[in-house]
């Protein structure tokens, strides 16, 4: 987690390394150049030393010849020694070009030393004339040495001419190198610094952008920072936070949705109740009247009428009571039978009603007043309009974890677009319904009740009848622990 620090250290290290390299190279170069210059100068100095030493020898010899004192002799010996050393030094300067001249040169030195010795010898033998002659010769040789020195230096210059020029050329090249080095280093450092700063600021920018998006309330955009430093860590944490917030919001939205649905179902219920109330003026008066009528009919021996009236009263009571709660399929079937009794009484010849019921399945939960409106619908559309009447079949069958409830008629069928409309819940048709509750109301209540879309299906074809199929789950999703037992 110290990536940014690492980056800074790396940059510093690279710069330091480059500078050290350049410094070392230049130091190396300087040292080499100095050594080279020393070598060259040494050559010239050694040659010059010979000239110098030979002249010194002549001077000292002259002094001694004039004043033969021990000091002068010591001086002379010193300068002769010096000349001898110079001769040996000069040996090492030999190369192919100056070989001949250099040999002559050292021989000249020998001759000079010989002549000096001769002069001393003659002096010691008191032969002044010959001593002077030898001295003169030595002096001439010394002059020759000076001349040959010039020749040698000349040869030297010729031999190393190319080399000296290459030294000058190289120092020019060094200037050029400095220029190029400066240019390259500046360029590379600018590039590197740019890259380096972007590698830090780009993630920061992204993070800033993401924060801005979040602050605008857009929680659905993923935050991605590809670098591998602290910023990336920050971004990762930020991303986690965003995901959490997003999840929370979604949860809240879902809850709100549920609330909304609940509200809607309540509204629907109220609407149903309102309609049913609307159609039931003075219900208690009506019940009581119907009861009285039923009893009266019974007393008068009209038992059938009495039953009919009791069915009507039961239906009405059920209608009032059961609209807003869950009932068992058994109760529903009972009401349905009462209703069918009434209808059979209405159309004794035209209507035929058939039941195929698996009694063991009647415990399932179902919203109140579900079946009656569907059957009523079948009566209204498939029986009433037709002289010859119709048949309505009611089936309850096991279908795995569902209970299949079918209401089929042999009427003219429903056009497809109407079926779709009904299932969508868009259609509002209240014509002729006893309870004032239409199919679409039933559809919506069923869906809300079970939380399932496929709980109801309508199969219909023109002139081939209509079949409404309810697929009721045996266990209700939300209140599975409510009630399992058939209340029957």
């Amino acid at each position, binding site marked *: 987690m110290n990536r940014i620090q690492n980056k800074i250290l790396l940059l510093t290290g690279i710069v330091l390394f480059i500078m050290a390299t350049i410094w070392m*190279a230049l130091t190396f*170069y300087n040292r*080499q150049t100095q*050594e*080279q210059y020393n*070598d*060259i100068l040494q050559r010239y100095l050694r040659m010059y030393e010979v000239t110098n030493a030979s002249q010194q020898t002549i001077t000292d010899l002259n002094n001694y010849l004039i004043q033969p004192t021990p000091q002068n002799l010591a001086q002379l010996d010193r300068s002769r020694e010096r000349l001898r050393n110079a001769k040996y030094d000069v040996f090492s300067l030999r*190369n*192919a*070009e100056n*070989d*001949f001249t250099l*040999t*002559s*040169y050292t*021989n*000249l030195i*020998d*001759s*000079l030393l010989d002549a000096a010795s001769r002069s001393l010898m003659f002096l010691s033998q008191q032969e002044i004339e010959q001593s002077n002659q030898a001295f003169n010769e030595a002096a*001439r*040789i010394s002059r*020759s040495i000076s*001349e*040959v020195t010039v020749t040698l230096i000349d040869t030297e210059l010729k*031999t*190393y001419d*190319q*080399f000296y020029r*290459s030294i000058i050329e*190289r120092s020019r*090249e*060094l200037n*050029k*190198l400095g220029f*190029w*080095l400066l*240019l*390259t280093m500046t*360029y*590379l450092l600018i*590039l590197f610094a740019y890259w380096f700063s972007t590698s830090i600021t780009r993630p920061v920018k992204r993070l800033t952008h993401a924060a801005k998006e979040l602050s605008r309330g857009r929680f659905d955009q993923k935050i991605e920072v590809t670098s591998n430093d602290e910023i990336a860590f920050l971004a990762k944490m930020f991303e986690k936070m965003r995901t959490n917030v997003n999840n929370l919001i979604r949860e809240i939205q879902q809850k709100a949705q549920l609330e909304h649905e609940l509200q809607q179902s309540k509204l629907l219920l109220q609407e149903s109740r309102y309609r049913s109330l609307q159609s039931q003026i003075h219900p208690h008066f009506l019940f009581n009247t119907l009861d009285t009528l039923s009893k009266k009919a019974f007393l008068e021996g009209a038992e059938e009428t009495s039953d009919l009236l009791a069915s009507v009263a039961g239906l009405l009571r059920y209608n009032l009571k059961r609209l807003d709660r869950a009932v068992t399929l058994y109760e529903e079937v009972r009401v349905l039978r009462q209703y069918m009794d009434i209808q059979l009484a209405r159309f004794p010849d035209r209507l035929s009603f058939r039941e195929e019921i698996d009694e063991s399945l009647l415990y399932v939960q179902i919203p109140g007043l579900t079946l009656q409106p569907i059957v009523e619908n079948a009566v209204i559309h498939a029986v009433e309009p037709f002289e010859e009447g119709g048949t309505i079949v009611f089936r309850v069958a096991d279908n795995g974890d569902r209970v299949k409830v079918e209401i089929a008629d042999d009427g003219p069928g429903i056009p497809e677009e109407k079926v779709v409309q009904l299932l969508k819940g868009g259609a509002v048709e209240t014509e002729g319904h006893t309870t004032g509750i239409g199919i679409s109301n039933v559809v919506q209540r069923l869906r809300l009740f079970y939380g399932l879309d496929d709980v109801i299906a309508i199969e219909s074809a023109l002139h081939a009848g209509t079949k409404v199929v309810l697929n009721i789950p045996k266990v209700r999703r939300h209140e599975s622990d409510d009630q399992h037992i058939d209340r029957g």
Partner: protein
Amino acid sequence: MRKTVIAILSGISIVLLWFTVASAYRVFSADWRLPQSPARESAEYRLVLITQELDTPFWDRLGMSAREEAEKQGAVLEIWGSYSSDPDEFLKKLEIAIHSRMDGIIVQGLDTDAFRELVKYKAASYGIPVITVGSDVPDSLRRTYVGSNQFLAGQMIAQQLVEDMGTEGTVILLGDSGNAHYQNERLKGIRSILGAYPGIELQYAETSVARDRVIAAMKDLMNRSPDTKAFIAANANLAAAMVQEIGRRSRVEPYFIYSFDDSPDIEMLLRLGHIDGMIEQSPEDMGKLGVSLMLEWLRGEQLPLDSKGYHTEIRMRKANGGP
């Protein structure tokens, strides 16, 4: 866009790096050491050829062949010398050569006491053999002489003159006042032939090589003997001034003019037809023979050398081509 920028940037950095590296290579790859010539074995013998007439065709040819011969035999030969008529410089060079303890000295003879002194005593005391070439100084104790037989050369020129001119007439003979040995030999040779013809009158004069002196001497001679038919310059250096003086008086062609070849101008005079003939020597042979004799002597292959000298070929060359 981004890709292009990256490509351009890397391109620039590659170019910069290339230039930098190339420059660094040039700076650091140079040789730091002084160029060491391969340590050649020092030559066995160091010889020196000393002449008074550097840069003349005659001595150039001689020096060239001498150097070639020395190289062939594994010796080193350097050519030293002075330019014309600077005997002091010449002698100084000779002395340096002796003091430098050369293994052998091949030198153009100079007929002076100083020269004799150097060769006789100094060279001998240092044990350095001296061979004279081109011109001889016989009494200098040089080992030997390599060059033309000047007496014979004189005879040849005189014979040619007799052949061309006939046996009667006046001949002007001009010599250098230096009285060099080689000139004396030539004069002797000429006289030995011409003396046999009583019809030939020989007028001899000596002059220094300075141009005006030559002209003055010529004027004097020609005034004294206006019927001169032939001229001989015993020293080739006099020929140019001589021809000029003759040409000033009349045409050059009718006269018979002869000389030797050891002067730079003589070749031109012959080609122009101003002189009728000259004795041609063999400088290449002299150089070659001189060096090989010196080396033979140094190696002890030929002891002693013939002190009379080794003569190289001489030819008569005439203006109109062949002899």
